[in-house]
């Protein structure tokens, strides 16, 4: 009941500017209204049909996308009440050309270890007419070994499991601008994108018996496609969806492999808001981006569970990025802080460099 009330309040807040003739507010109203309907339909589908879903999970898509859209619209409405959200704030934040990151969380339990994860990402891009081409490569590795204790009573004091993971995500992207760009109205409000991906995970495990296993998990997402909608000069909503194919291989005494087979449906949705810093920040021009998002994937075990709805949803995320530029410099610094909201979600800090041409 409380969640419903909060969603209704967000919906109402997002529609109020529309009533005042605010174009961005009108877009938010359409987004929030449609998404709220989708959320309600998905929630009804999931809670009525429940576990009986036998093929795919469109209900989770409606809930995930709907909650992000309605929540984001509420965030946008609050921002609109406090500042101008219509005028473009300059070149928008994008993944840095190169970035270093560190992620992790505290080790909660005695005798266990949760080392940090270090990452290195690169996103070269090029523009060709109405098309924007990029390739994002994100590599990460646990900086040490995860250690889980055996907590069974009765003298079990050793380690139950030790593990480490090396990950590589590759995502080429073709983005098309059908209109004359954001702000031009009509189709200019939309970007269309094709972003196939591959996720590689190499895991090394040592069991309580000392037996070791190396596991290589691969997710192929060959046809992920979607759109980005510019609700206003500073607010955007995006959604991407596609099939996922899972591949598995393992080494050890009984090595083996499984070819790619159809896995759960994948989608990703986000709402972001750009906010220029009102004054100089540390001697730089600063542009902030706030984002809330949802990724429908439990590939890395970070799904969001509530009540008996276990295993249906992937993680939500919230992030803040800031780009610091100075006119005389050929590079801008971009800092990011992102957190995953779900089981075993991590918080990641990144520092990256953006070419001045992209930073305005």
């Amino acid at each position: 009941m409380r969640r419903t009330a909060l969603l209704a309040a967000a919906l109402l807040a997002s529609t109020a500017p529309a009533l005042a003739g605010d174009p961005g507010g009108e877009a938010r109203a359409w987004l929030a209204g449609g998404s709220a309907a989708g959320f309600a339909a998905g929630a009804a589908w999931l809670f009525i049909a429940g576990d009986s879903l036998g093929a795919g999970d469109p209900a989770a898509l409606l809930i995930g996308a709907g909650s992000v859209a309605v929540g984001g619209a509420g965030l946008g409405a609050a921002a609109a009440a406090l500042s101008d959200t219509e005028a473009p704030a300059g070149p928008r934040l994008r993944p840095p050309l190169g970035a270093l990151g560190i992620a992790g969380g505290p080790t909660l339990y005695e005798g266990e270890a949760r080392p940090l994860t270090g990452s290195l990402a690169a996103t070269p891009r090029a523009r060709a007419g109405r098309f924007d081409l990029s390739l994002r490569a994100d590599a990460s590795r646990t900086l040490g070994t995860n250690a889980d204790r055996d907590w069974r009573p009765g003298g079990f004091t050793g380690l139950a499991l030790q593990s480490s993971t090396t990950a590589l995500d590759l995502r080429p992207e073709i983005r098309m601008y059908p209109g004359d760009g954001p702000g031009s109205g009509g189709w200019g409000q939309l970007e269309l994108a094709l972003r196939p991906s591959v996720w590689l995970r190499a895991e090394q495990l040592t069991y309580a018996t000392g037996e070791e296993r190396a596991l290589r998990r691969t997710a192929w997402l060959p046809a992920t496609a979607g759109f980005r909608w510019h609700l206003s000069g500073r607010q955007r909503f995006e959604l991407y969806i596609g099939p996922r194919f899972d591949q598995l291989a393992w080494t050890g005494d009984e090595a083996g492999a499984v070819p790619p087979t159809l896995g759960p449906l994948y989608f990703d949705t986000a709402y972001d808001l750009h906010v220029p810093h009102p004054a100089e920040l540390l001697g730089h021009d600063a542009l902030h981006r706030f984002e809330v998002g949802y990724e429908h994937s439990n590939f890395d075990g970070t799904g969001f569970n509530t009540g008996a709805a276990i295993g249906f949803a992937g993680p939500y995320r919230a992030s803040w990025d800031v780009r610091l530029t100075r006119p005389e410099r050929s590079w801008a610094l971009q800092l990011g802080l992102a957190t995953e909201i779900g089981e075993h979600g991590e918080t990641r800090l990144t520092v990256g460099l953006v070419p001045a041409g992209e930073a305005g």
Partner: protein
Amino acid sequence: MSRVLVAIVALAGCARPECAPANYRYPECRVQAEWELSRLVTSEGVEVHFEDPGAEVWDARGLLHEDADGAIYARLAGLGTFRLTLSGPAPSARVRLDNVHPSVPPLAGEQARHGLVRELEVDLPPGGAVIEGGLPAELCRDGFRLAAFGDVQKNPLQLRRIVADLHAEAARAEDAGTPLLGLIFLGDLSETSARTELRNVRDLLASAPIPTATTPGNHDVYDAHDAVYNETFGPGTHAFDVCGARVVLLDSGSGSLASSVVGRLPELLDGQASFLLAGMHHPPFAGGTSAGWTAEDQAQLLLAELAARDADLVLAGHLHRRMSFPGAPVPQIVVGTGGASQYAVDPDYGYLRMTFTDELDTCFVQVPTPGSDGEQPARRAPETCVE
């Protein structure tokens, strides 16, 4: 919220034991609970615990508590051999042993039996006593059967019909020379994890002709403060050997496995059995369904370990229908057909029949609702059994 507080405390450099306090919605806490519930010190100081029959060490192979009349209630979790040890200052102990196959020969100290329950009066010499037993080897010389299904939830009446049909199945199995040795219940026994619901299911299963090995589903692990499932049925993760088949049940109720269970996978899965079966609530191979694992990495690891050992079959529920997955690395059958809603005009309820001879054969025994037409065209695999 409790994890947030733990994280804050941990940031302050105060890491602490897991499950202190316990949240039984997390699998590791249920592992601790099921181990604690497999040992008991009675009001008379008698110490009892379940053991691994092969290793003769403490193992979470059942549930123990002291009844109001002072008898020790012991519920076997698995379908094969069992062993309990007792010691203490009392000269004897009364034991009510539950979930025992009727074909298990009389046990030491047995006074009476009714259905799946044996009443024992066990002498306690200074060195302690042992209760052990199992199915006679000649019982399954020519093969045997097991039944399996999951997902009853809000339809215990359908469970009642299935239990009644199991009596007919036991007779059919006897006639075929492949006796029915047990039932595997693949989770979602209840709808809301309420103690009354779980006890109702346990009482219904007490009418079955054969014992039941259970594992919880997501609907059975709501309660953060009480390990209600474990307090009713015993362990959710356990393994046993029955007539040359090794059956490993894994508690996936939280959409993941406890780390200590993942760490013990080789220990649980290894053995000299002719058949290897794994059962859990959430199917580890998604195959185009939503499957339901929060930790898909664990699901894939489990598939790799099962495939590395040439496992014969993975059994699961969660999806309220019967399904086979021909593309899975290990043959997988979903039978969430115990009565939970299928949103179908004519639901397809029933259970899986597994016949173990030189090979493993499976088919589906329909237990239709009253007024149902029975077999419908284009039913899914596995196919309906033909008598």
